[in-house]
């Protein structure tokens, strides 16, 4: 179960509608991830913007010694922030750093939709 709370609920509400939200500071205008109520850079108030959903692989690792192998990754979005995610709908052996990827939404345990990435 994803621990949804008052602060992070807008992110998961948007994800259900197919939008991937990044945090944006109303004071300093800088983007951050994961989104939070207080800007991690200047401590100002924040809102969110929807990411375009495109980026490239910064780092990844395929977990092999588990019942269902999976690829964890950091993806650097075109907007400049890097996000922790999974790479899905692809052969793990073909994943490469710098490969272009695009967002897809997948159900997590408990039913919430979460952003993941697949080769673009």
């Amino acid at each position, binding site marked *: 179960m994803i621990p949804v709370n008052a602060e992070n609920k807008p992110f998961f509400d948007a994800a259900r509608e197919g939008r991937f939200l990044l945090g944006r500071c109303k004071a300093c205008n800088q983007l951050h991830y*994961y989104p939070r109520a207080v800007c*991690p850079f200047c401590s100002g108030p924040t809102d969110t913007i929807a990411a375009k959903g495109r980026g490239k692989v910064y780092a990844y690792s395929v977990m*092999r010694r588990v019942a269902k192998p999976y690829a*964890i990754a*950091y993806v650097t979005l075109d907007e400049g922030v890097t996000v922790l995610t999974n790479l899905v709908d692809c052969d793990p052996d073909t994943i490469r750093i710098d490969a272009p990827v695009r967002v897809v939404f997948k159900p997590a345990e408990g039913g919430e939709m*979460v952003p993941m990435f697949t080769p673009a």
Partner: protein
Amino acid sequence: MKACIAGIYEHPTRKAPDKSVAQLHAEVMNGALADAGLSKKDVDGYFCAGDAPGLGPLSMVDYLGLKVRHVDSTETGGSSYIVHVAHAAAAIAAGHCNVALITLAGRPRSEGSSGTQPRNYGANAPDAAFEAPYGPATVNMYAMVAMRHMHEFGTTSEQLAWIKVAASHHAQHNPHAMLRDAVTVKDVLDSPMIADPLHRLDCCVVSDGGGALIVTRPEIAKSLKKPIVNVLGTGAAVKGQDGGRIDLTYSATAWSAAAAFAEAKVKPADIQYVSIYDSFTITVLMQLEDLGFCKKGDGGRFVADGNLISGSGKLPFNTDGGGLCNNHPANRGGMTKVIEAVRQLRGEAHPAVQVKNCGLALANGTGGQLGSRHGSATLILGRA
């Protein structure tokens, strides 16, 4: 000098199904006090971290039967105990205590812990909702650091394997080590892939056990029988994701090391022995670079060809076999790193791995996940 490490003890157990965690804390306390030549009545400061059962120092001071005027439960994962040494030195300098006891113990082996299991720091961890769905375990959050290092600097699996090879050469001489067979680079590469690019032999062991330290003021240390080991410099730092500006090519050790070297007024080339927390081979490589033993990106070449093996290499490391071969009590490596550094400075390491006339040693640890958020601590120690 501000403070000295006067007592050390490493629990010999590697699997303790018939003991409690609190009991292991008591046993390591007794061991460190006996090593120092002090009694429980002398202890007036107590330090523990997240491995301590119950309500940290409240449960443990009560269970152990201590009477203290200073407590500290700083929690920075596996690096906690190196931070505790720094905090104990500061508390002693401030007059808050004279004899500080630091304990660590745990039974992850008996309890079935594994680095492939997702970590859970509770529903209120602010990152939990954004990360738990993706299966961050321990091993894959270090593996991504290795993957990026390989991409940026051309580091190879063979180079990482040399770190395990060196640890295994040392572990041959440690009768308590879990893994006592010397291994080759090929053995590491032939072991099963756990999380690309880390093989099974790139990963530390899971063991039960514990350790304890006694930190005291120099006047008291001088009245005891053991050789004097001075705390010369310390540093601590935390590095996270920086709001999404993620850079996996360096660790918080870059910051903690700078502080410790400045305080000790020495440079990396002066250090004769290093204890480096080796949760994974990549953890060692990253710390060696960030400590300044080689340039950023040169870690692979630096560790290759046995350069970390005592007696033949330029920088002997983890002469007890480290977490890769000896033990990893409570899944936290900082304590045993300090213990082996003190053994080296006292001349108490195994003769086959003892660094000749070792006068200056360094212990470094990381805690948490190198790939997301972690704490680093650096400790520079000198023989009087």
